[in-house]
């Protein structure tokens, strides 16, 4: 069972409810355990649904990576939160879940979080010579020839 395999890998169990809609289990984990967690889900025929990131530097001084795993055929969607320090890197899970490739590239593009072991970590949505990471809370877009720099409050 997936729960037995996850127990040694997770840090905290926030919620497990087999009758809930949406997420049936909600865990937090340490970044070092991510590859093992991905392998555990993979061995139980779970697939990676999504990875995303939250910029929580102001409140908790961390970036929070959010992983979703799901299995078809049974209502089991797992949510895993991984907090990493702003200057730290996270291990890539592309070797187990190839679907993570573009998600990790997007997180790198938008938040500047690096993933160790990613085969080709480069920008995915922004142009290659773009400077900065636009979804950071404190980010101000540099002047661009593609944008009319309208004044604050002006009706765009």
């Amino acid at each position, binding site marked *: 069972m997936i729960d037995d395999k996850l127990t040694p890998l997770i840090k905290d169990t926030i919620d497990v409810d087999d009758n809930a809609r949406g997420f049936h289990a909600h865990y937090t984990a340490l970044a070092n355990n991510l590859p093992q967690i991905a392998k555990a889900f993979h061995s139980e025929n779970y697939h990676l649904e999504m990875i995303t990131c939250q910029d929580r530097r102001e409140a908790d001084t961390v970036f929070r990576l959010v992983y979703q795993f799901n299995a078809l055929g049974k209502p089991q969607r797992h949510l895993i939160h991984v907090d990493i320090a702003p200057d730290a890197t996270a291990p890539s899970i592309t070797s187990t879940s190839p679907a993570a490739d573009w998600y990790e590239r997007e997180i790198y593009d938008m938040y500047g979080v690096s993933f160790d072991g990613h085969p080709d970590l480069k920008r995915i949505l*922004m*142009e290659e010579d*773009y400077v900065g990471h636009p979804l950071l809370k404190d980010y101000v*877009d540099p002047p661009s020839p*593609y*944008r*009319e720099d309208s004044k604050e409050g002006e009706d*765009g």
Partner: protein
Amino acid sequence: MASDSQDLPLVEGDPKNVEEMREQIGPLIHLDVLENLLNQARSRSLWPLTFGLACCAIEMMAAGASRFDLDRIGAGVFRPSARQADVMILAGTISRKMAEPIKTLWDQMPSPKWAIAMGGCTIDGGPFKYPGQYAIVEGADKIVPVDVYVPGCPPRPEALFAALFKLEEKIRAGKKFNG
């Protein structure tokens, strides 16, 4: 001598480089009658470049299909190669990452060439324009020189037809075109 020309004071409207000068003078030999004839031919046989950027492209495809049939006005020959096309219909939101490929395509098209900005996004960014946005190009005219703007979100195929008629008018008028 580049250094000499830099010493001269530039007045407004002065050609600053050879390209600009050529554009102002045009060809060295003017054959007015022949030019008019060529413009007549050009205006009635527009070959758009096959490419769509977003949802406006669906309306562009509808305009090309049987119900509206762009071929009726001789503009239905969508070319898959920029080397064979002379009209660029910018149909849809232009993301910043797409700006470079579009510039390349425009440069690959042989002159004379024209551009139609179809829909709100290509006019000024449309619904995606807000202070500090990082994703899109606010208006196709920041990348290519646009001849005709088509408002709408998306414009109906009839509006694209109207734009093509306006473009034909512009081509036929040549330098005498006024609005």
